[in-house]
C-alpha cells in the first residue's frame, strides 16, 4: 500500500524499449505476411484439393491450433537444433510464428472461401474464366473481405503472442522489459510501460490493417459497408 512509483529509469533505458518494440514489429510483420500467404494456399488446398491434400492440411491445422505456441517455439528452436539444424533464435521465432499464423489463417480464409455463393462461381463459368482466373478474381478477394475483421484480430493476437519468444532469447519487447526489470528492480513500472507500448502497437496495427483494407476492397471504400 505504500508503493511509490518511480519511472526515472526510462530516461536511460528508453532506447532499449524502442529497439525491443522495433524487433517485435519486424518479427511479427514478417510472420504475418508469410503466415497469411501460407494460410491462403492451405485454405485453397483445403477447399479445392483432393482428399489426401485436404487431410494433410487438416492435420496441420489441427496440430497447430491444439498445441501451445510456446511448445511450437521450443520444438523449432531446441528440437531442430538437437537434430543438427542450428537456427538462430530470431529465425526460429519467425518460423514458429509463421507456422502458427498459417494454421489460424487457413481456417479463417476457408470460412471466407466457402461463403462465396455458388451463383457467383457459375457466373464466372459463364464468362469463360478459367479455374485459376475464377479463384484469383472472383473467390479470393471477396472471401478475404468477408473475413477481414477476423483476420486482422488474429494478426494483432499474433503480435501480442510474439512476447513469448523472449523465452528463447529473442530480444524483443518483453525480453527488453525483463532485462530492464532485472537491472532496475522497478518491475511494476517496467511492465506498465511495456503494456502501454503493446497497446500503442495494437492500435498502430489496427490502423494499418484498416488502411490496407481500404486499399484492397474497392467496394468497401466506395460504400463503407461490410460485404
Amino acid at each position, binding site marked *: *500500500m*505504500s508503493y511509490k512509483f518511480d519511472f526515472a529509469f526510462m530516461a536511460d533505458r528508453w532506447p532499449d524499449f524502442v529497439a525491443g518494440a522495433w524487433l517485435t514489429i519486424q518479427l511479427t510483420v514478417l510472420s504475418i505476411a508469410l503466415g497469411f500467404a501460407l494460410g491462403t494456399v492451405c485454405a485453397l488446398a483445403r477447399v479445392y484439393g483432393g482428399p489426401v491434400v485436404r487431410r494433410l492440411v487438416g492435420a496441420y491445422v489441427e496440430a497447430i491450433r491444439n498445441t501451445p505456441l510456446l511448445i511450437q517455439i521450443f520444438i523449432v528452436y*531446441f528440437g531442430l537444433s538437437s537434430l543438427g539444424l542450428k537456427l538462430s533464435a530470431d529465425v526460429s521465432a519467425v518460423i514458429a510464428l509463421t507456422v502458427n499464423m498459417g494454421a489460424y489463417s487457413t481456417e479463417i480464409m476457408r470460412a471466407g472461401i466457402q461463403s462465396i455463393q455458388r451463383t457467383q462461381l457459375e457466373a464466372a463459368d459463364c464468362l469463360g474464366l478459367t479455374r485459376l482466373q475464377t479463384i484469383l478474381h472472383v473467390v479470393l478477394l471477396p472471401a478475404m473481405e468477408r473475413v477481414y475483421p477476423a483476420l486482422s484480430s488474429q494478426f494483432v493476437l499474433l503480435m501480442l503472442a510474439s512476447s513469448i519468444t523472449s523465452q528463447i*532469447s529473442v530480444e524483443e519487447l518483453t*525480453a527488453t522489459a525483463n*532485462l530492464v526489470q532485472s537491472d532496475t528492480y522497478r*518491475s*511494476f513500472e517496467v511492465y506498465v510501460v511495456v503494456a502501454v507500448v503493446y497497446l500503442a502497437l495494437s492500435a498502430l496495427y489496427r490502423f494499418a490493417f484498416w488502411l490496407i483494407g481500404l486499399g484492397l476492397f474497392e467496394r468497401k471504400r466506395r460504400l463503407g459497408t461490410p460485404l
Partner: protein
Amino acid sequence: MKTVSVLRLILGAAFALLSLGAVAHADTLDDIKKAGKIRIAIDLAIPPFGMTDDKMQAAGSDVDLARLLAKDLGVALEIVTTTGPSRIPMLQTNKADLVVSTLSITPDRAKVVDFSLPYADHPSVVAGMKSATIKQLSDLDGKKVAVVRGTTQDSDLTQKAKGAQLVRYEDDATMALAFASGQVDIIATARSLLPAISKKNPARTLEPKITMQTNYLAIGLRKDEPKLLAWVNNWVRTNLQNGKLVAIYKQHHGIDIDPALLLKAGG
C-alpha cells in the same frame, strides 16, 4: 441521498482495507506466526538448489534449508515457486515473506531488499566443453555465451566482456537445454550447476574455464523488517555453527562449505 451513503460505504471499506494493509505491512514476523505459515519463494528449476524430485516433490538444498527454517520457527512452510528474474518482485509485491533461491548478495539488490548473513558461497564461472580454449574474458569475443537474464553473470559479462555475444534465457533449465541442444557452446553460470548439466549430457561435458567472482548466497527479506531480519540472522548463525546447513550443502552439492569463512564474510 442514497448515492451519497453508498459512496460513503465504499470509501469506508476502502479505508478499512488500506489500514489493514498498513497493519499487515508493519511486522512480517508477527504475521507469519499468526498465520502459522511462512511463504518462502524458491526457484524449483535450479538443481541442486531447488528442483522437483522423481516423486514430484520439491527438493534441493534451498528447499531443505527452507524446511528447516520453517520447522525451527514452528510454522508450516508454503513454497512459492519463482524464477530468477521474479525473485525480488515476489518480495516487493508481498507474494512471499522470504526468498531462499540462490540469491547472491549484490550492492544493487541491497538497495531494494535486505539480506541475511550468507548461508553458502557461490562462485560463478564461464564454462565450456573440454576442447574449447578459453582462458580469459577476452577469449569470449565474438562467441555466443548463454546466461540467465538478470543474474550476476549477466551483469558481470555485460560490463566486462563487451565483445561476447550474450544470449539471455529466462531460467537455468532453458539455458541448460540451449547448451544440451547445441544452440550455445559456452555458458556462464554458477559452478554448482555444472555437474548436473554434464551428467545429463555425457556427450557434451562442461568444465569451468574462468572463475568470474565468488558471491555469497543469503536469504532475502523485505526492507524494514528488523525483527524478522534479527531472527533469520540468528538462525543462520546457529545452523552454520551446529553443522546442519553444512550437512544440507554436502548432501546436495558434494561440497563442504566453511562456516567460519561465511560468518566472516557476513561481518
